[in-house]
């Protein structure tokens, strides 16, 4: 860790003339306002993306964003300002602004600096440079050709490759001095197929915290191209979806967006501190069927939602949220943990230096259960089998949530039959979780495309689950029986 810290200081601080003495000077100014926690968050992120359509790589872009977020916390109050300029004048001004909220609290001395000796969850090398630009362009062309080869009905292909590399360093008055280097790559394929007058779209994507070889090597890209075309062709045959309450079987992997919406957000510490979540004050209660154990785990190697340390310098961990249906605890950042008198769970995340950190998910998934997936489908006489989803949303106060199926089938007499058009499923999180009656033994994590939005801030996340049977969810099709 100390080598990494030195690397990041060299990269982030040295070009701007910043060093530990100057940063400590800023921290002392911040603490003059009698604050409970003072924090400086330094960040630089480089991103590059390339996109192909109409068979040519027609666009590419590159960006560099850097700055420092300055936060002062006093009781329940937070003051926040940031500077894109690492010069002392701009940083001093941001520091003065952030501490303007402080009117109470303990005079803090900075604790002795200490860095977490957390394990590294990904490589440090810059993924943008991990593949020559000419090879990136060639990769996009290869994916385009692969998609078109799948079927003559493929009429449009869009491919996008993106990579980013982030340096972050956080120092806080509790003694935190921690740094991280974070790679992230992603490849997305979207196709349109046409038959007669009908057109349908299919898409697939994947990636993680790794170098571009992850998506460029082996059959990764080919599998995405095949998957995008397959889902589009399935939807060409889709009939109108049913409307009303039904038994729904959810496939493994990405359908875990169910958990992200139905329980994940409702178990974030801030909503529970404020009593605004349907799960507030329910630790120790049965909130899901006994088959359900749900965790948030930021430690998985190379996953899109993983972090070696969170944005407050706390090592990530596996946090058990629900165990055999019983609510065990919430996801916490430092601020909410302090006010709720519990430890941080390493879930303090922020979109960038220009945003305040808050409790956020990393990789959230359900552990496998006892049932064979085939047995689950065979147990349903009349229902829906949903295997792919667009996205979801939750109202954490009432608990109602939606997620939108993009590939789904009818189940008739224990067999998966006709594909149905995309439909939104709606339910109430705490109710739906108690209606999970079968859990498969086939846990899968998603392919690495999740983006979670909260209070206007986006962060990359992972989801996952085994095959699940929910005894009743409202299916929002057009065919009311």
């Amino acid at each position, binding site marked *: 860790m100390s080598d990494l810290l030195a690397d990041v200081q060299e990269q982030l601080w040295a070009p701007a003339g910043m060093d530990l003495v100057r940063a400590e000077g800023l921290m002392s100014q911040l603490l003059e306002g009698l604050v409970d926690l003072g924090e400086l968050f330094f960040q630089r992120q480089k991103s590059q993306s390339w996109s192909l*359509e109409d068979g*040519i*790589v*027609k*666009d*590419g*872009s*590159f*960006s*560099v964003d*850097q700055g420092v977020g300055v936060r002062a916390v006093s009781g*329940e*109050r*937070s003051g*926040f*300002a940031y500077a*894109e300029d690492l010069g002392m004048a701009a940083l001093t001004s*941001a520091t003065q*602004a952030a501490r*303007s*909220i402080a009117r109470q609290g303990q005079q803090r001395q900075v604790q002795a600096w200490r860095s977490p000796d957390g394990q590294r969850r990904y490589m440090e090398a810059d993924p943008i440079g991990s593949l020559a*630009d*000419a090879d990136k362009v060639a990769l996009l062309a290869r994916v385009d050709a692969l998609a078109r080869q799948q079927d003559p009905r493929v009429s*449009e292909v*869009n491919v996008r490759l993106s990579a980013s590399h982030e340096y972050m360093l956080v120092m806080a008055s509790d003694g935190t001095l921690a740094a991280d280097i974070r790679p992230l790559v992603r490849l997305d394929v979207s196709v*349109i197929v046409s038959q007669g007058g*009908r*057109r*349908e*779209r299919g898409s697939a994507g994947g990636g993680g915290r790794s170098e571009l070889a992850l998506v460029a090597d082996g059959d990764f890209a080919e599998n995405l191209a095949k998957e995008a075309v397959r889902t589009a062709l399935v939807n060409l045959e889709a009939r109108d*979806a049913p*409307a*009303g*309450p039904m038994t729904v079987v959810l496939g493994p992997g990405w359908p875990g967006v169910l958990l992200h919406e139905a329980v994940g957000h409702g178990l974030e510490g801030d909503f529970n501190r*404020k009593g*605004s979540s*349907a799960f507030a004050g329910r630790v120790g209660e049965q909130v899901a069927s006994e088959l359900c154990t749900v965790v948030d785990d930021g430690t998985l190697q190379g996953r899109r939602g993983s972090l070696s340390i969170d944005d407050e310098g706390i090592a990530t961990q596996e946090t058990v949220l629900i165990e055999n249906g019983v609510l065990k605890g919430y996801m916490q950042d430092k601020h909410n943990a302090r006010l709720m008198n519990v430890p941080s769970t390493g879930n303090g995340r922020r979109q960038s230096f*220009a945003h*305040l950190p808050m409790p956020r998910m990393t990789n959230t998934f359900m552990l496998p259960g006892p049932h064979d997936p085939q047995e689950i489908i065979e147990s349903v006489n009349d229902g829906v089998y949903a295997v792919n989803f667009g*996205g*979801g*949303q939750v109202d954490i*106060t*009432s*608990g*109602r*949530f*939606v*997620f*939108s199926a993009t590939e789904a089938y009818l189940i008739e007499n224990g067999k998966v039959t006709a594909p149905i*058009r995309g*439909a939104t499923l*709606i*339910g109430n999180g705490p109710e739906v979780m108690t209606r999970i009656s079968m859990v498969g033994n086939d846990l899968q994590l998603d392919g690495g495309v999740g983006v979670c939005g909260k209070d206007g801030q986006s962060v990359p996340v992972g989801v996952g689950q085994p095959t699940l049977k929910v005894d009743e969810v*409202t*299916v*929002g*099709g*057009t065919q*009311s029986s």
Partner: protein
Amino acid sequence: MPTAMMDVRESEAALKQLVSDILAEAERQGASAAEVSVNEDAGFSVTVRKGELETVEFNQDRGFGITVYHGQRKGSASTSDSSAAAIKETVSAATNIARFTEEDPCSGLAEAQLMPVELPDLGLFHPWSLGTDEAEELARQCEVAGLAQDARIVNSDGAQVSTQQSCRVYGNSHGFVGGFNGTRHSMSCVLIGEDENGMQRDYWYTLAREPSKLESAQHVGSEAGRRTAARLSPRGIATGRYPILFTPQMAAGFIGHLIGAISGGALYRKASFLLDSLGERVMSEHVTLRERPLMHGWIGSAAFDGEGVATREKHFVNAGVVENYVLGSYSARKLGMATTGNAGGVFNLQVEGRTLTVDELLGEMGQGLLVTDLMGQGVNSVTGDYSRGASGFWVEDGAIAYPVDELTIAANLRDVYCDIVALGDDVDERGNIRTPSILVGGMTVASQ
């Protein structure tokens, strides 16, 4: 202390110089054409929750983006750093991208003769001389009014006051450089109510370019409280097909899906359910969608679009028929048409049609669903298939009967746009799409 805010107008001359410097660097590095946009924003927001100051956040950003063209190849780059060294590196990064992209016959700047010669003053800049202490007091008054609205309002997610200034300058190698300044001020309140059937939340907000046009703190708070209390103890309804009345806030999204479907990017990618709709009837014949980019002080006003093309008033849909697509120069070339001055989207879209009072609308609906909230992304822009989570109120005998929740509404949008029965007289003037309530004949409603 930045409680007395900077004035971004003072930056405009510097930003114009920055645009010229970046364009000169692009030319020096061999670009045959280039375009640059620079933005500077400054402001703060203050949140009060349960009577106590919760957050004070200051923001101040300056960033630029450049696109360089080397013949028909292009590359883009952006950064938050405007130092001389960063300009050089960023132009170089864009130039490097353009070495690897492929010839695209449609790429390039918009035509020079389309740029405005003179820029009208659209009256968009009205700074608010507001300190953070005053903002805190306003937010506190707002929340107090909301909490007092109903005894069942038991919790709050806070009231927020925000003031923002921005300056945007765009220039390209045709020699066009244009800039404009704007302000946006807002106040919002989110409340939580609870009764024996659980908790519900709702909110209200006011947004304007002029502080004097904001609704009062008391009004915002009590409206948030009234809405939250009205949602308590929701029921379900029988699954079936019913008339749907969208509030203006929900109608804006409903109209937005149509604008997306007649936008150039979706059309040339064949990713629209309204392909080849120019000259075709796609909405009920009393409905007109008119763009008014040059209105004084409106939220979406702009004298030029994202590539410097002068904006102009026009109809996208006139008496139900598509009269113009929504095009920038690139999508226009892909479709063999001319740009409509809509690079970056529409600027103040006004929805007009057969208008009734809201009471008359409810009366005409008789029995059906008033939708006040929609959830999720269940709109397929290729097929027009629409299925979203909804909540609102059940309407019986032309009057609101009780709150309903955990519903979905579904249909194909092509059918629904032609089934618009009437509009209300309650236009929401806060957004870029200015629409009243919209009554449609029928959609499938699913419920437990």
